[in-house]
């Protein structure tokens, strides 16, 4: 429906009004959507008019909450949607979409049912002790447990990848003073400019901005030059750089072609994935010791750096095809970590031959997954027993 919105006599805006009837709307209730041309003044005028009709603004997440209450989606889907709204990149979008479409729940469900199967093996020994069932030996039990645990762990560890997707990959550009870090920083931003909102390093002693490579967000950090210094202010800047270096996911080390011996001084920082760049090759010749030899000034070989960054992005965020979806939610990560801890407990208890306490650990591990998903009932364990074992004396 198309028309105009008036305030007293004057036209506020030309708008489109859409009506979504229950239960097909997002929340499951009757919903009216007004699309206006925007602009803060128009928007405020609109709100003012609507307020006259005893309407109020939605609380944070209220639409999703109503959707959950009306059975339009489950908690995981709601969580994923809230992440989706906040997502900026294609990677993120893809990831959250896989959560909303249930792939993620499916992966957790598979692990959960493996734990329940495992628990049935132990419960069987307790409840059907008279049945002459050939019991599984301890070594085998522990072997199976390790397999399950590895899966939970893999899922848990995927959070790291998930976080790259969510928060971006931190790229620290380091190097001795005057090696061309800031020029490189600017050049990369220039080449991949998207939404540039430059944050000058007045408060943080470094400059940060982001670019997009292969759909992933890269947070570039231009740091103060690292060297031995006695000057107080500079020392502080260097400390900051060292901190950034520690937190970075990728390090780009920039060395001046006229001062190549500096490379050895930075070698000790090789624990991080480091791209070694030789700059200013317009002034001196290239070297095999570097991953890329460039000249920011002339723009020579700058594309090589982009390619190297692309490779790193793929390594960090791209997941092998058959693998599980990635965990991007902090709450889920905590649950998975706890599940892992309980599975460790299972191992300890089985080693002590204490299956009754191992069962408690298993149930708690399941409960953690349930809190991501749904709920457990004891008859599931029994159904399992009945389907897979010959019982009945």
């Amino acid at each position, binding site marked *: 429906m198309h028309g105009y919105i008036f305030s007293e006599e004057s036209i506020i805006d030309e708008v489109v009004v859409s009506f979504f009837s229950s239960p097909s709307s997002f929340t499951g209730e009757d919903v009216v959507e007004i699309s206006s041309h925007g602009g803060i003044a128009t928007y405020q005028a609109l709100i003012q008019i609507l307020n006259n009709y005893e309407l109020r603004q939605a609380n944070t997440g209220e639409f999703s909450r109503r959707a959950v209450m009306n059975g339009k989606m489950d908690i995981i889907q709601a969580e994923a949607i809230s992440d989706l709204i906040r997502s900026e990149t294609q990677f993120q979008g893809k990831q959250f979409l896989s959560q909303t479409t249930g792939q993620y729940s499916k992966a957790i469900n598979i692990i959960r049912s493996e734990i329940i199967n495992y628990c049935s093996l132990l419960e069987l020994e307790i409840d059907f002790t008279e049945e002459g069932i050939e019991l599984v030996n301890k070594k085998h039990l522990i072997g199976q447990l390790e397999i399950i645990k590895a899966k939970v762990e893999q899922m848990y560890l995927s959070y790291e990848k998930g976080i790259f997707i969510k928060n971006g990959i931190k790229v620290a550009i380091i190097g001795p003073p005057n090696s061309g870090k800031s020029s490189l920083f600017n050049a990369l931003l220039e080449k991949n400019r998207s939404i540039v909102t430059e944050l000058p390093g007045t408060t943080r002693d470094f400059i940060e901005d982001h670019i997009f490579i292969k759909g992933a967000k890269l947070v570039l950090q231009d740091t103060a030059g690292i060297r031995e210094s006695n000057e107080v202010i500079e020392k502080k800047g260097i400390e900051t750089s060292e901190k950034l270096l520690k937190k970075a996911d990728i390090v780009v080390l920039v060395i001046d072609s006229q001062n190549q011996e500096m490379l050895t001084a930075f070698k000790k920082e090789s624990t991080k994935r480091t791209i070694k760049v030789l700059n200013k090759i317009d002034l001196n010749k290239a070297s095999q010791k570097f991953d890329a030899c460039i000249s920011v000034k002339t723009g020579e070989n700058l594309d090589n750096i982009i390619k190297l960054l692309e490779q790193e992005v793929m390594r960090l965020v791209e997941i092998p095809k058959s693998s599980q979806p990635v965990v991007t939610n902090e709450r889920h990560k905590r649950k998975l970590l706890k599940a892992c801890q309980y599975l460790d407990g299972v191992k300890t208890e089985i080693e002590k031959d204490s299956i009754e306490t191992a069962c408690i650990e298993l149930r*708690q591990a399941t409960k953690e997954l349930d809190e991501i998903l749904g709920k457990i009932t004891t*008859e599931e364990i029994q159904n399992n027993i009945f389907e897979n074992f010959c019982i009945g004396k």
Partner: protein
Amino acid sequence: MKHKSYDIIVIGGGHAGIEAAWTSAGMGLSVAILTIDSKAIGRMSCNPAIGGTAKGHLVKEIDALGGIMGKFSDDTGIQFRMLNKSRGPAIWSPRCQNDRELYSQRAQQLITEKDNITVIEDVVESIEVKNYIITGVLCSSGEVYKSRAVIITSGTFMNAVMHTGLTQTEGGRYGEKSSKGISKWLLNHEFELARLKTGTPPRLEMESINFTETEEQPGDQNPKPFSHQTKGSFPKLQQISCYLTYTNQKTHDKLKKGFDLSPIFTGKITGVGPRYCPSIEDKIFRFADKTRHQIFLEPEGLNSRIVYMNGFSSSLPADTQLEAIKTIPSLQNAKMIRAGYAVEYDFVPTHQIKVTLESKKIEGLYFAGQINGTSGYEEAAAQGLIAGINASLKIQGKEPFILKRSDAYIGVLIDDLINKVHEEPYRIFTSCAEYRLLLRQDNADLRLMKYGNELGLIADETYKKVVEKQKLIQEGFDYLKGVYLKPEEANELLEKQLSTKIHQTENASQLIKRNEIKAEQLLRLKYFDDSTLFQQLRNNPEAINQIDIELKYEGYIKRQHKQIEEFKQNEDTIIPLNFDFLKIKSLSNEGKEKLSQIKPLSLGQASRIAGVSPTDVSILALYMRG
């Protein structure tokens, strides 16, 4: 005409009926047991045994609440065993073989001697109701008995049909008629009924078995009784062994030949049987790769010639059963006294009853035992006890007695029964209990006697002893936490128990946590000689045992208590009586339907109802908590 009048009428004298009558009478109400045959009171229809995993827990709980099953079992037990003894004490389960004849004789004797109980032989034709409230029963003799409550414990006898091969006989137990009046009455009053199936194995003649071809299974050396009432030397009767033997491929081949005549495989039986207790033909059919199945040969009594073939339940034709039996080496010359058979019977699906086991439709009408779709003597007895207690409380105008899942296996049983959909007879398992480490068979008295005493079913004197024991346990436990032993005080014992020696002082409770050290051994150390507390403890082995268990499981026990706290949050969120679930539009349709049908009393209960989704529960929580 003046009618005979009782507070409570119990229909049926099986394991549920006995407990229902026993507790009601114990609470001071006048009770009549109506039974077709008074000699059938306390009859064990199936295996001659009481207890087993989780079932043994039920018996001990029944006993702690003032029930009587444990006493019969102790008095007539001919083999006692603690199952799972090689495992941790949390999962030990007592079981006993009983003399079938003596068991029912003992039950009849104690029931007839009990004040307030009258046994009447008559067949109930219909139940008398006025304005949806019980007024009594009408019997086929024409007699009307007035009462304020009726507890139906008719077991497998409602519209019962027995199957052996394709032959069908009316009846709920060999040689006994089925009862039709109650089924008809229930249907007329718009109760929903459904069919279930159960089965029993053949009985063999003792002399025809070659026991040298079997493995002997003796009972425990120093068994403990089920009941706190059992005093003096124990066991009371001579003890016997059971015998283990196995089927083989030939047995399976013979049985397969009879499959065409199986009432189950041919679809004659429509009721669903228990998966945990399948017939031998079912085992062969479903687990074709298993080359043998075990059979326990259980003597039915001290002077009985009958041997029960546990594990060989069958409804195949009698001659097929016998042919198959004869392929087993120890049973080559076996004589079959009676073939196995399956029984199909009506039960009342449990969405029609409350947690007190009272029907939702008719006030004062209770159901207990197999009529509710359970299996097993112990499950039946537990329900009889709860129905008896609640019927009595209601007549006395008192609040109902409801055990939580965190209180007892009985609580788990009833909660499962009411909230879940059952497609097979329900049997209790230890895995049904979330708080298994706390609901142990060894602490049933500590958990429940308080309630038994409050209900007037446990004598003050008995309860006082339990309170003293509890106090002793607590004091001992706390004291041990503060005791530090020097190496020279403890190492001799540690060495003897092949435990790692200590090099500096160590906390006594830490030493008891070691698997190889028992609290009882540690408390005998000289160190404790001067303590009067420990003199008392040394004289109370049960208290020491509790300290031992509580310390060994300490971390997990704490965890389970914490879980109970969380569990109680939802249990204590009360849903008002007659709450209209339909008015919450956001509930799923299935959720609305199930909630309206079951009418849960708490959010916790709602969360356990089959068909109520987690989303439904969270919506309900928003409403209840505001």
